[in-house]
């Protein structure tokens, strides 16, 4: 058996900084150690409670009736046939929303239930609660909606000049970045137009949860989400009650990847529970899930790169149009990211970049892993390959020549003050030994797989390279702080933080951090909830290791200081001479020690902290400003086999290097990198929500295909490039998104290398190759 290809931590690590001063005593289960997940055992046993596993006495099932039309007026709704069905407890419409009808993460423009008009296929129109899920579904189907269907706006480029489809207009945001001398021209100029399809997050655990009403008009909601407190804020506004009357607890989350940043069924569950006075549970089916959450924005991008004849970039011009779909979601932040990072991780003295996120009658788009940087990475990396060809230069050398780093400026004018080891990441990945992959006779290794569609003799091989980057944390002046509480009692630490564990492994890191800071082994994690702890911000933007990790670290340090101060006073020594280690308070001179369990017996010590990152600022009218906190980059090299006649591709290897700051848990880091690459592979070759006049044509795992074990190659991690980031807890950067940013572009480049075709669009479909 083989599975040797992953070359991780010890072998491939590149530590070029120190930053070890912050590590107190990692021990065997602290920060940096290969510690297992605290929820690993219950998850392999099937005992871990996901949001679809909830149960309460006498609960009801909720179901949502959704619009079959992309654009229509609602002339009338007859709920009579549904109400008359035995087992139905409630049928609710927009008029039953007691508070604000609309919600939204950045702009509250999305109705909780359609009010006289529907703007996309799948928009919620009515809610049903019944005592059996099939009755709820049949009752929803029995509701008669009289629609006056109209022509949908489905072209994002045409939307700004089309008749407004929403009172807020058809433009979510336009952004312009003007940097340097825009009159300069290069000796070598290359142009391209690129497109990216609409990708779905396709998490495994469907949207689900349970709401339980209280007699005092308050409601308790157990739900899978990425950000409990921002959910609460929006739910309370729609319900028209105080936030304190809405209590959220995180239920087990079956993956997220951005799709759970917006509300889906949260308001609906609470409405049904408060209306019926009974607990209500909802679980989306898979086809409903495809309609029930936002997607990655499809993009069209026009690029013109100018360079001197030695390959130095002189100017980058780009125009980016994102289709935001029917409602705002996070479109304004996504287009900002796409625009800010449109030139790639390169030194670009002049840039003119314009971005537009438009409203259409397509499904709403918002957050997905990589958040705007994925789309433009495909654009700028395609351009860099084109430029290398025009210059007759090696594409890796061209990238190294222009690689950005500390002391350089982004096209937004922001000076890079933290770590940004682009050149090292490129070198580690591009110059890693090429894997020896013989052309296989095993049909399972061939393009098309075991369907026996290809012969080895008909395939050609290609290798491609790409590098990308994005911001960590939220940008443009937003203070996305995190909160955490630490309590040490009887020698046991308890951490409370509302950070949404979505699979990424924050629960493991929180325990590791507490062990490192407090010298304890047993760390209890209290449930993530809104009642007793402040916001942790979103589990997105590669931010929780830094932000909630930082909050947990700060809370633990405050408790440590309290303990050491008391013990120092009792011993008549300075607290500077004391440490917490192995469940003991120890004096560094070795003269005195006490059991932490004894010192913290009874009431114990506690601290509750808010952790903020360095402030950022808005972009000015030229798109200039210090808008971002920190950056991370990664590079990918893909090797593919292609059958050019059939248009089939098999990825044989992905080699990567990634800027990680510092690795806090090697196995979890590998898991993030491999998983992120799989999603990049999907976008490159197979994943796309197919739309026909706004109608989703492939809302199932039969028709929306994601990579399987037969599609994913072995991943070789050539290096974790470890340059500790100043200001980050333990120097660690978030690592979730970079693997998804440039992997798609590298695979596309490899297919181009194999076929010699231009392939300006991802996903690359068989017909694009065979008929291209």
């Amino acid at each position: 058996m083989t599975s040797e290809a992953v070359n991780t931590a010890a072998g491939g690590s590149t530590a070029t900084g120190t930053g070890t001063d912050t590590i107190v005593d990692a021990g065997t289960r602290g920060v940096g150690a290969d510690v297992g997940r605290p929820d690993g055992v219950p998850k392999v046993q099937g005992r871990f409670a996901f949001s679809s596993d909830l149960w309460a006495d006498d609960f009801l099932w909720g179901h949502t009736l959704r619009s079959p039309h992309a654009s229509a007026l609602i002339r009338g709704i007859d709920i009579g046939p549904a109400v008359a069905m035995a087992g139905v407890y409630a049928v609710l419409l927009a008029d039953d929303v007691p508070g604000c009808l609309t919600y939204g993460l950045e702009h509250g423009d999305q109705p909780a239930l359609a009010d006289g008009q529907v703007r996309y296929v799948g928009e919620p129109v009515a809610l049903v609660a019944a005592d059996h899920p099939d009755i709820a579904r049949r009752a929803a189907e029995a509701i008669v909606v009289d629609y006056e269907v109209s022509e949908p706006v489905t072209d994002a480029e045409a939307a700004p000049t089309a008749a407004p489809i929403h009172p807020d207009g058809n433009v979510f945001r336009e952004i312009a970045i003007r940097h340097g001398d825009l009159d300069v021209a290069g000796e070598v100029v290359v142009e391209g137009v690129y497109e990216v399809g609409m990708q779905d997050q396709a998490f495994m655990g469907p949207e689900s949860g349970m709401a339980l009403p209280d007699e005092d008009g308050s409601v308790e909601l157990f739900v899978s989400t990425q950000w409990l407190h921002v959910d609460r804020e929006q739910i309370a506004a729609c319900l028209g009650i105080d936030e304190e009357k809405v209590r959220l607890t995180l239920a087990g989350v079956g993956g997220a990847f951005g799709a759970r940043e917006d509300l889906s069924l949260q308001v609906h569950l609470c409405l049904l529970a408060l209306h019926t006075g009974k607990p209500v549970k909802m679980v989306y089916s898979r086809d409903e899930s495809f309609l029930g959450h936002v997607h990655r924005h499809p993009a069209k991008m026009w690029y013109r790169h100018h360079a001197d004849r030695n390959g130095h970039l002189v100017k980058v011009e780009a125009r980016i149009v994102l289709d935001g779909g029917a409602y705002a979601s996070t479109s304004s932040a996504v287009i900002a990211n796409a625009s800010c990072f449109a030139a790639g991780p390169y030194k670009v003295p002049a840039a003119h970049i314009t971005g537009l996120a438009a409203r259409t009658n397509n499904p709403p788009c918002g957050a997905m892993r990589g958040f705007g940087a994925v789309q433009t990475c495909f654009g700028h990396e395609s351009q860099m390959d084109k430029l290398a060809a025009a210059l007759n230069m090696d594409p890796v050398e061209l990238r190294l020549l222009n690689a950005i780093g500390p002391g350089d400026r982004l096209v937004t004018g922001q000076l890079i003050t933290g770590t940004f080891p682009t050149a090292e990441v490129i070198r580690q990945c591009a110059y890693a030994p090429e894997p020896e992959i013989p052309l296989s006779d095993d049909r399972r290794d061939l393009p098309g797989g075991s369907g026996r569609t290809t012969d080895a003799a008909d395939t050609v091989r290609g290798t491609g390279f790409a590098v990308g980057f994005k911001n960590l944390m939220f940008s443009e002046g937003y203070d996305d702080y995190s909160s955490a509480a630490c309590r040490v009692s009887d020698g046991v630490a308890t951490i409370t933080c509302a950070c949404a564990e979505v699979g990424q492994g924050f629960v493991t890191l929180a325990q590791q951090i507490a062990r490192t800071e407090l010298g304890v082994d047993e760390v209890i994690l209290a449930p993530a909830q809104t009642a007793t702890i402040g916001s942790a911000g979103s589990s997105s933007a590669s931010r929780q290791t830094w932000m909630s990790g930082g909050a947990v670290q700060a809370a633990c340090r405050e408790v440590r200081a309290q303990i050491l101060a008391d013990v120092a006073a009792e011993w008549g020594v300075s607290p500077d001479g004391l440490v917490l280690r192995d469940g003991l308070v120890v004096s560094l001179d070795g003269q005195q020690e006490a059991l932490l369990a004894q010192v913290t017996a009874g009431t114990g010590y506690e601290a509750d902290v808010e952790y903020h990152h360095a402030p950022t600022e808005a972009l000015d009218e030229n798109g200039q400003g210090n808008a971002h906190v920190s950056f991370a980059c990664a590079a990918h090299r893909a090797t593919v086999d292609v059958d050019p006649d059939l248009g089939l591709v098999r990825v044989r290897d992905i080699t990567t290097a990634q800027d990680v700051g510092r690795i806090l848990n090697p196995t979890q880091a590998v898991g993030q990198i491999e998983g992120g690459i799989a999603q990049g592979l999907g976008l490159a070759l197979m994943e796309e929500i197919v739309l026909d006049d706004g109608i989703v044509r492939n809302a199932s795992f039969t028709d929306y295909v994601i990579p399987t074990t037969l599609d994913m190659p072995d991943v070789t991690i050539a290096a974790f490039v470890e340059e500790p980031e100043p200001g980050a807890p333990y120097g660690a950067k978030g690592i979730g998104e970079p693997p998804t940013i440039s992997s798609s572009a590298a695979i596309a480049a490899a297919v181009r290398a194999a076929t010699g075709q231009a392939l300006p669009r991802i996903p690359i479909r068989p017909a694009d190759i065979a008929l291209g």
Partner: protein
Amino acid sequence: MPDPYSLRVNGVDCEVADSDIAESLLFVLRERLGLTGTKNACTEGECSSCAVLIDGVLTCSCLVLSATAAGQDITTVEGLGDGRDGLSVVQEAFVDEGAVQCGFCTPGLIVAVHDLLEANADPSDGDVREALSGNLCRCTGYGRILAAVNTAAEAKRSQP
């Protein structure tokens, strides 16, 4: 409503009452018997998160009408534990190798890997990939899962 019937799950006879005839085995396991370890990622036979063994045959429980499974031996993820801390070698390997992230696909994979290693004690990389190609996972990219299968196969072979 059909007459009450009995399902034999993990060696225990379980009475199923008040169940609609259209309910799937997945629904009855989860909602009537409280065995929520078997997962519902697609409920249309495309992802294998609901995999169980019926008379030893790996099956998507979402595609089986519950009442038709009466009289057969049903094994779910809850019935597979033994050994260290009640974990099978497969479960232990998944924990040790970091094969679990969100964990939603995990129970179906555990059942599928048990089935694979019963049939083939020393599968090649291609055998493993083919056997698990129906189990969708969105978090891991499968690398740690494949490593866990190797580890489990080795551990199983070295068992007395």
